[in-house]
């Protein structure tokens, strides 16, 4: 029987090592440690929220923070829309060949982008108080006395500077051949701008505009420092009364969810609007 080939076959071997699970590398271990850290932090935060669960506190402060959310949304929406309106002439100035308009637009943009929003807000809110007589004379004192109005005013001017840069940059990024082609087709200047230049520019501007919306939501928390009761303002008031850190955690969760949802929505919108560019 010894002659049978089968009896001298090699015994079955275990599967090669590389195929059973992935190898342990430094980066894998580092990733696991970091994820473990996040998991511990997450559990810690959940424990703080669970241990600190206090129906009385929630009944008292949750509706206030809800009001704060509405104030934040209003503040951001108004600032962004007003800022978009102001940004149009500024962007035109940034693109104009005239040294006067170009210089004014550059100075405006440089000032608002080069100084902290907090300092600008103080300048408007406290600075207006120095010119009470003047504002009373022109009948605007009721507005400038109000912290909420001052916040909208400052944020609009601030975001207008950033939006003007986005708009001007996007319009200048449209290739010159587009304008020449439109000219050679005999289209009017206004038609060229509205139907050819602007649609292409807005696609380039979409992503920076989305970033600007998110930056504005985050920056709106600065309004809380001049006593506007937005999410951050309500949170600060509640914290100063309770000294309970979980209130800040609520605010953090609210901001994180808002920003993350907005970012995802913007990504979807961008994909939809640029689907003709996909190959």
């Amino acid at each position: 029987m010894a002659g049978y080939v089968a009896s001298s076959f090699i015994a079955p071997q275990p599967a090669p090592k590389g195929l059973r699970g992935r190898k342990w590398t430094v980066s894998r271990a580092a990733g696991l440690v970091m994820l473990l850290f996040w998991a511990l932090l997450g559990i810690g935060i959940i424990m703080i929220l669970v241990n600190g669960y206090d129906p009385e506190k929630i009944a008292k402060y949750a509706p206030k923070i809800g009001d704060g959310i509405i104030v934040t949304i209003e503040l951001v929406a108004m600032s962004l829309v007003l800022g978009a309106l102001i940004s149009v002439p500024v962007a035109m100035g940034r693109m104009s060949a005239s040294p006067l308009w170009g210089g004014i637009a550059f100075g405006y943009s440089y000032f608002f982008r080069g100084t902290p929003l907090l300092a600008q807000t103080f300048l408007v809110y406290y600075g207006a108080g120095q010119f009470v007589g003047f504002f009373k004379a022109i009948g605007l004192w009721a507005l400038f006395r109000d912290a909420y109005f001052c916040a909208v005013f400052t944020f609009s001017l601030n975001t207008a500077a950033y939006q003007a840069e986005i708009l001007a940059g996007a319009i200048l990024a449209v290739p010159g051949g587009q304008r020449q082609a439109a000219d050679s087709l005999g289209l009017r200047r206004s038609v060229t701008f509205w139907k050819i230049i602007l649609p292409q520019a807005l696609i380039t501007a979409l992503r920076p505009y989305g970033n600007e919306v998110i930056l504005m939501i985050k920056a709106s928390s600065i309004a809380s420092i001049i006593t506007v009761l937005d999410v951050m303002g309500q949170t600060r008031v509640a914290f100063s009364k309770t000294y309970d850190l979980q209130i800040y955690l609520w605010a953090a969760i609210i901001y994180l969810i808002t920003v993350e949802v907005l970012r995802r929505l913007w990504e979807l919108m961008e994909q939809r609007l640029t689907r003709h560019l996909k190959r």
Partner: protein
Amino acid sequence: MAQYLELLSYGETGWGDELIRGVLITIILAIATLPLGLLFGFFIAVAKNSSEPLLRNAAHIYTTIFRGLPELLTLFLIYYGGQMAMSALWMLVFGAEFEVNSFLAGIVALALVFSSYASETFLSAFKGISHGQYEGAYALGLNRGATMRLVILPQLIRLALPGLSNLWLNLLKDTSLVSVIGLSDLLRNTNIAVGVTKQAFFFFFVACLIYLLLSIISSLGLGRISNWAHRGQGGH
């Protein structure tokens, strides 16, 4: 006019010395944050660029959190949360109170924010370096460390510099938030001056101009660094 110059003068009657001290704190805070933020940002970017999904996800969680939170909220969370955590720890170990320094809280919070943005800048710079660079370095017999140090990093700096320059200017502006937790930086000292003199518009305008001056000086410095980073490119 003379009255305004008097307000800005150095000494008992003027606020010039207070403002200068504030500017120094602002600059020191920004400069102390920078290396920490760059280092963190670089390592987070390396993690995001890794082929290991666990590491990539862990790094993405970091960016999502610190880019999503308002800077002010990060600062408060670090300041008050750090105060509570450190107090509890100190009580347990030494049985004594612990006071969190607003300067330290400011550095940590600003570095967290800076590094999460910097990691994105470094990541896109990594993506801008072609794979042939690594292959060429390995073919020359360089190991991974030497490849990173001698081949990739010099190119990375050049590609990341525009983004990092913007982040530095943002950092300079964000230092003003630390005035809210009581650090006597430029903005807080300005606030004090306003409280005493009631010249709000004048002093805040001066503070804005000082911030503007700091960013102009930074831009000049960054221009020189950019020239240095492009030294091998020719024509710049």
